[in-house]
């Protein structure tokens, strides 16, 4: 059946609007990308240049080597990956307990886990920092990762999903003589692939973006993360910021989370959709 003309016009308008939106929203990043390809002088030209230059790899190299982004990149990767993975595992275990067992105090403990959402870093920042100092974890991977290992989002997400898993599955497992943990690892976890991927995207991006915490718990260049590296680049110059190198730094900073989001976008969207179906 052919679409009537009015619908066609509407579709065309929608396309145009969407394309315009994509361009407008992406423009700041485009401008940043262009600046990352310019030389120091070119970046300060007036009127500003809007077409790419030829210094991209030079600037990337400056950021990577001179500004030590190589090490920062490594640190960010280590902490984002490890926290995302540990958070997922811990959330899976906890959600499993809350949905497949009845035990005394479950309600209270569950409520306690939910409270974490109301305790973001700033409401406890000084004592947590002091704790890191007391543990001698300052300027180590421990301080950057362990305090993040618990996640309300994860527990909620998996709990919701586990509740929809039919009882028959666990019954069948029990009949086969499998204990709960075997059931967990061999049946439940594989079943949760989509949610795991969605949570991975959320947690990886969350950890990769961390700024305030790494700012205060790291002391030296070898433990810092990419986000702080950007700040150091901008703040280090007494005269004029090297925008071209700084933008190259932002390119380096943008790639991993973007990659994670793009590669796992289907699972991410599905996971969100599942959560919205209350």
């Amino acid at each position, binding site marked *: 059946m052919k679409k009537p003309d009015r619908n066609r016009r509407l579709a065309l308008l929608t396309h145009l609007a*969407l394309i315009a939106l994509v361009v407008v929203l992406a423009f700041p990043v485009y401008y940043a990308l262009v600046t990352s390809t310019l030389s120091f002088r070119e970046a*300060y030209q007036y009127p500003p240049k809007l077409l790419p230059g030829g210094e991209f790899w030079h600037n990337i190299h400056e950021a990577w080597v001179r500004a030590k982004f190589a090490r920062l990149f490594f640190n960010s990767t280590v902490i984002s990956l490890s926290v995302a993975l540990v958070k997922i595992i811990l959330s899976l275990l*906890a959600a499993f307990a809350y949905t497949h067992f009845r*035990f005394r105090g*479950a309600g209270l403990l569950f409520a*306690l886990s939910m409270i974490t959402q109301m305790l973001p870093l*700033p409401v406890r920042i000084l004592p947590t920092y002091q704790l890191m100092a007391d543990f001698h974890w300052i300027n180590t991977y421990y301080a950057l990762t362990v305090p993040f290992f618990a996640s309300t989002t994860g527990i909620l997400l998996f709990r919701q999903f586990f509740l929809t898993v039919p009882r028959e599955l666990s019954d069948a497992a029990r009949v086969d003589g499998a204990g709960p943990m075997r059931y967990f690892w061999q049946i439940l976890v594989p079943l949760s692939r989509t949610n795991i991927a969605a949570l991975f995207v959320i947690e990886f991006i969350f950890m990769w973006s961390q700024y305030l915490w790494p700012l205060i718990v790291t002391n030296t260049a070898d433990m810092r993360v990419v986000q702080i590296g950007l700040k150091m680049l901008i703040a280090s110059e007494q005269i004029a910021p090297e925008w071209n190198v700084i933008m190259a730094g932002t390119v380096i900073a943008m790639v991993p989370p973007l990659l994670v989001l*793009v590669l796992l976008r289907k699972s991410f*969207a599905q996971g969100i959709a599942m*959560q919205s179906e209350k």
Partner: protein
Amino acid sequence: MIEERFPGHPILPYLLVLPSLLVIFVFLIVPFAESVWGSFFVSSFFGSKTVFVGLSNYLELFTSPDYLHSVVVTLLFSSFVVLVGLSASLGIAMLLNQKIGGLGIYQIALVWTYSISPAVAGTIWALLFAPATGLVPWLVSLVAPGYTLNWMTNGPLALFVVSLAATWKMLGYNIVFFLAGLQNIPDELTDAARVDGAGPWLTFRYITLPMLSPTTTFLLFMNMLYAFFQVFGLIDIMTQGGPGDATNLLVYNLYRDAFIHLDSGRANAQSVIIFIVIALAAMLQLRAATRKAVYAR
């Protein structure tokens, strides 16, 4: 409602929740309690001397014009991020929710800003608005010759620019959730409304919006968390609270008092105040979510 699916394991569930709870207790709950406790003291920079002062830190904050100014700035900033952010994202999500080709590509092309960190967003927008060299001041100078748009010396402008940058970064996130929420609205409802002769505005007001309310309340809360806390990196990179405290959000003021002024009592008091605000918002959201959810069914 929870069924015992694996009877005969009295200890296992406790072991399963133990790691999470341990982390939560040691790194979240105990430090928060210490924040509360510490807010009743004043101590020297090196911690060698502490004096109990009761509620004096709180009194000082509430009578301090600088702190109240911070509150106002935070309110303005978050209102902008929430109102502009949610409206724009909803509009875009509704556009995306049409049955047209290339949807997948559009989706990713509009959602990807979610992966950008606040610090990166701040860096990019700092470049855009850099007074002597950025694109936007140049554009403005074309329209108003001789005028240099300098957000480093113009407080309201600086607040506007950081609000814009923060909202821009959050659009992707909001769009994802709105889209999911929209796609969950059964077609029968919107079709029935159309059959009944309701125009797009009425459909939107009486079907779409109410059906979206769980998503909306969720996003309201998440955007509020974002505007209160996660934008720290953006502020630190762009303005450091300036010019002249124009962008001195509550969280930034807290950072300054804690780590630059080394005033732990005052900082802890601010932590507690922020917690009370967030807790209230969380409870409101919870109540709205459960109430509306029942209604939606």
